[in-house]
């Protein structure tokens, strides 16, 4: 039959995020790490030059990764490959789209390129994931075309406390909007600085975000993965937590299993035994730079 093919639709973009649910997306900085991630059962990898913990340590301006590195990783694995652009840097995004990266992360982990505007993500065929600290921020990103939202957490700290704060904030407002009266929805749109239509959509569908909600920022252990899944995350991004630990391959597998069996303490105990050193975490008060404050 002569079918008409529509590419880059909202459903196709959100669809890939739906396929990643229950999985772990791992930050990798080279082919070797990408293969370890795939062997461990990652559903996707995020190709970048430095993990957030190193970006934090090195300072300076953090930018999109070298296309050659991204290409090498694309060639090395069969799972989806994501890559990061700076907030608002649509030229970096155009390059990643031309390279057929599977998802673009417009990320606060890199140094923002634009203090006023995020990328117009509707203009792209490749889907975008964006970070959010609260529901208003999530809805502003969705209105710009984001097909997936992740908590920002505080990347590169190995400390899950900020991700927990962001997830709780988002899910608690989702529940409140589900229970709100029609009249109150206008107040919610104002309070969140978010489009009324998205607020109304959440109310109509019983309190679900219109796109999947994943967790990122500070996951370091299988127990962390379970915690955030129980708080409403549908999948986990793990950055520094794996390759800054003592035994990355084993920890990667453990976090994969923990994300699937997050409600089963028996599995969590089994995968947590003799896991070796977790990454050394950083306490929030000891931070001189809060990445989650980037973007609006």
């Amino acid at each position, binding site marked *: 039959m002569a079918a008409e093919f*529509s590419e880059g639709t909202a459903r196709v973009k959100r669809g890939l995020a739906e396929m*990643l*649910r229950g999985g772990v997306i791992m930050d990798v900085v080279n082919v070797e790490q990408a293969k370890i991630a795939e062997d461990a059962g990652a*559903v996707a990898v995020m190709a970048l030059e430095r993990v957030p913990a190193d970006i934090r340590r090195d300072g300076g301006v953090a930018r999109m990764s070298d296309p050659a590195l991204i290409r090498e990783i694309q060639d090395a694995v069969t799972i989806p490959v994501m890559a990061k652009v700076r907030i608002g840097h649509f030229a970096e995004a155009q390059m990643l789209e031309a390279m*057929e990266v599977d998802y673009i992360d417009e990320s606060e982990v890199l140094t923002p390129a634009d203090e006023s505007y995020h990328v117009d993500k509707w203009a792209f*065929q*490749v889907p975008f994931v964006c970070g959010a600290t609260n529901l208003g921020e999530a809805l502003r990103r969705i209105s710009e075309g984001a097909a997936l939202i992740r908590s920002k957490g505080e990347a590169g700290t190995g400390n899950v406390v900020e991700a927990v704060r962001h997830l709780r904030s988002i899910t608690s407002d989702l529940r409140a909007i589900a229970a709100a009266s029609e009249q109150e929805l206008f107040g919610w749109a104002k309070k969140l600085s978010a489009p009324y239509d998205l607020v109304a959509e959440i109310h109509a569908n019983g309190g679900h975000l219109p796109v999947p909600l994943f967790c990122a920022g500070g996951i370091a252990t299988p127990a962390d993965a379970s915690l955030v899944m129980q708080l409403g995350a549908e999948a986990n991004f793990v950055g520094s937590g794996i390759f800054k630990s003592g035994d990355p391959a084993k920890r990667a*597998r453990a976090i994969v299993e923990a994300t699937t069996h997050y409600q089963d303490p028996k599995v969590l105990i089994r995968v947590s035994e003799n896991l070796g050193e977790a990454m050394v975490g950083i306490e929030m008060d000891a931070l001189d730079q809060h990445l989650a404050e980037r973007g609006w």
Partner: protein
Amino acid sequence: MRIGVIALQGDFREHLELLALLGWQGVAVKEPSHLVGLDGLVFPGGESTTQCILSEASGLRQPLATEVRSGLPVLGTCAGLIMLARTIIGGRADQWSYEVLDVTVMRNGFGRQVRSFEADIAVRGLETPMRAIFIRAPVITQVGEKVETLASVRYQFVDGASREVPVVVAGGSIIATSFHPEVSRDPRLHELAFTR
């Protein structure tokens, strides 16, 4: 009707919601004890490599191999098609499948995510077309003698060639699709798989 949905990774929630829509009981299968008393099984979309690893780790591989060979009605979508296929092209070196559906599939055969698409597809036995969502979808490159093609598309592949490929196939008690009827919320293939 009590249908198990393999719930290790992927879009198993959409399948459970469709089963509820049909008035059937959906069971999220995460471990072997969840396999008791089922009238059918769904292998959902997701990442097939991850699903392989988690099936082994959860002790589901052997019991599921027994179930799918027993003649139990089975529906597989996208990664689910890969899990059921006889032969996989473009998989990891150690990638296995249940080998109960006599087809060869090429992983991500339609291309990377930028080439993911949706289209109306005519399926034999259904009165109106299905809205079919293809996400980094596998391509069925070969179909065994006893496997029936229920739908196909003519598609311009990355290599420039236009080929007609099957996208819904049926073999024995198994129906499998390259696309995601569960994402477009169309329950008709679920009905077909479990009531024919």
